[in-house]
């Protein structure tokens, strides 16, 4: 177990910047999820933490000690790779044993550790099977046993569930979180699946184009996304965006566009007026209403029935799609006119140029 600090990490491949000026701290015993689309630098970041890739510049500290030039083995990290990679020619037991082969432990201690690790993830009866005889879920468990048998300082997982089918993923997700809480190892989990990130992480680091966009708890990331990218990437159905201008009138702040004039309340009420802003609002926070001045005129495009609710996908006034969550069973013909409203205090305002949330000074 260890606290892991990344100081100003840069990784370049030729002229390509894989990771830029990354600062991050992973607390001891925490489960941090690195989330982002492919090519965002999350796997590179994990490989640098593991010691598989050397950063171009910057420092990596484990419990305050500089390990930047240490090998993965010296760092005492354990890793589960994509598709739960195992040595294909070795039995499950020997795969787990390979983690301890260079540990210098006694034969007895090694056997005890293997037995304990196998029991922890419930693979005791699989120990004599070859990887090719294991199912996807069993491989994943054996790979996990191989990782925890080392009692690592950090446990790193690189999209271990991505090759599995949906229902298996669901149960293994819970299993991994449960395991992490039981053994209290610092765990870093890389994924491109935002649902996986939301359900597993103590905290989530959202990455894009080699930069850390935001790091925080799942609730924080969901309710207070710091950038347009995070707002659009996290959450199902995705956040709605409306373009407009911020104007001051009668001492109050208004968002106006050709089809809407709405007073901005809440934390952004004191934002500085500016010509172009983007307002973001979650589909769950919108309601279908009667037509009115502060309502958004919409045209029904499609309706998705989810059983417990319905998602109404509409063409918005400025061309983009707007999703509104309606009660289960809601129907309307395609092309019908609807109106929707929402509480502006629940909306987030972003600057389209910097793609970051608007700065607010003072209190509303």
């Amino acid at each position, binding site marked *: 177990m260890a606290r892991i600090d990344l100081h100003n990490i840069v990784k370049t491949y030729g002229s390509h910047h894989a990771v830029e000026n990354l600062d991050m701290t992973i607390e001891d015993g925490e489960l941090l999820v690195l989330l982002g689309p492919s090519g965002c630098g999350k796997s590179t970041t994990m490989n640098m933490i593991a010691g*598989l890739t050397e950063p171009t510049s910057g420092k990596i500290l484990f419990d305050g000690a500089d390990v930047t030039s240490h090998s993965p083995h010296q760092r005492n990290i354990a890793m589960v790779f994509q598709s739960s990679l195992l040595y294909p020619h070795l039995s499950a037991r020997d795969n787990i044993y390979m983690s301890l082969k260079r540990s210098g432990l006694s034969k007895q201690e090694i056997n005890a550790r293997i037995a304990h690790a196998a029991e922890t993830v419930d693979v005791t009866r699989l120990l004599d099977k070859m990887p090719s005889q294991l199912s996807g879920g069993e491989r994943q468990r054996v790979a996990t046993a191989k990782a925890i048998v080392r009692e690592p300082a950090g446990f790193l997982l690189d999209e271990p569930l991505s090759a599995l089918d949906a229902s298996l993923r669901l149960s293994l997700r819970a299993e991994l979180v449960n395991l992490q809480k039981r053994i209290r190892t610092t765990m870093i989990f890389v994924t491109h699946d935002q649902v996986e990130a939301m359900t597993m992480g103590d905290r989530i680091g959202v990455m894009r184009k080699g930069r850390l966009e935001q790091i925080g708890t799942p609730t924080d990331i969901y309710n207070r996304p710091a950038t347009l990218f995070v707002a659009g990437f996290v959450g199902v159905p995705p956040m709605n965006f409306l373009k407009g201008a911020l104007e001051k009138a009668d001492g109050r702040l208004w968002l106006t566009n050709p089809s809407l004039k709405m007073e901005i309340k809440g934390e952004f009420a004191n934002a500085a007026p500016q010509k172009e802003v983007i307002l973001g609002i979650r589909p769950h926070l919108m309601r279908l209403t009667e037509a009115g001045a502060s309502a958004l005129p919409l045209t029904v495009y499609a309706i998705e029935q989810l059983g417990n609710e319905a998602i109404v996908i509409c063409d918005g006034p400025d061309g983009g799609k707007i999703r509104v969550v309606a009660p289960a069973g809601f129907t309307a013909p395609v092309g019908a006119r609807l109106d929707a409203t929402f509480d502006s205090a629940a909306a987030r305002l972003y600057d389209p140029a910097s793609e970051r949330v608007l700065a607010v000074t003072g209190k509303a």
Partner: protein
Amino acid sequence: MTGRNTKTLWLALAVAVALLWTFLPMYWVVKYAFMTKTEIARFPPMLYPPDPMLASFFNIFGFDYTTAEGTVFKASGQARQIILGLRNSLIVALVVTAITTLVVVPLSYVFARLQFPFKGKLLAAILLSVSLPPVSTLIPFYTLYVQLGLTGTLFGLIVVTLTITIPIVAWMLIGFFRNLPPVELLARVDGFSRLYTLTRIIVPMARSGIMVAAVIAFLFSWNEYVYAQILVTGSNAVTLPAAMSGFLFQVPEPAQLAASLLLSLLPPFCIAFFLQKHIAEMHIA
């Protein structure tokens, strides 16, 4: 007849044609080996030996053979060459196989799994030497060998055969190594050195591929005729294919030629038989 049955029929027919295509010429040779010269000369040709006998097999090893009726088949004049050839072919093939495997395993591994400068160009060089017809290097090798005094030596023949086997086997194994899962990552996390990873993890993992590669090297060496014909024919370093070609320049002995052909087919046949399983695995990988 249903469409499905028609399809099966055509498939069976195609398989039959393919089998006939492959096995008929071989059958013809097998048949000759058990017949007498007069039987072979008969027209129309006989479809099977009327009275199969083993005389030719004794003759090519230098023994006279007397049938029950008292007919004597004399030992072949090529016998000394055949025996020498058999011994030399085995020596050359085994040495070439061993050296090829030792060189090619690390070489292919490096090309398949590591990044280094000029990799693409060096790989193209290997490919080029695969595509080079042996005849194109024959004259240069011959003049070189005459000057070095290497004609008619097993050493010289081994060196020349390696120039054929190493590129082609490397080319095969590079593809095989590329398809292995990235276990080097696991090995690094487990704290193993690169050398340990190659010798103790990659090699056991790739043993079927390596075995097939060794067999290919053996077969290429065993079957090599062009260089042997020019460099070692008539010397003590003669190999079986070169020794057999000697039959072509003497009084025709088709039965003995056929018998020695069968002899030369024996090792490849045994190898293919015992390694079927590994060869099949190689195709899956």
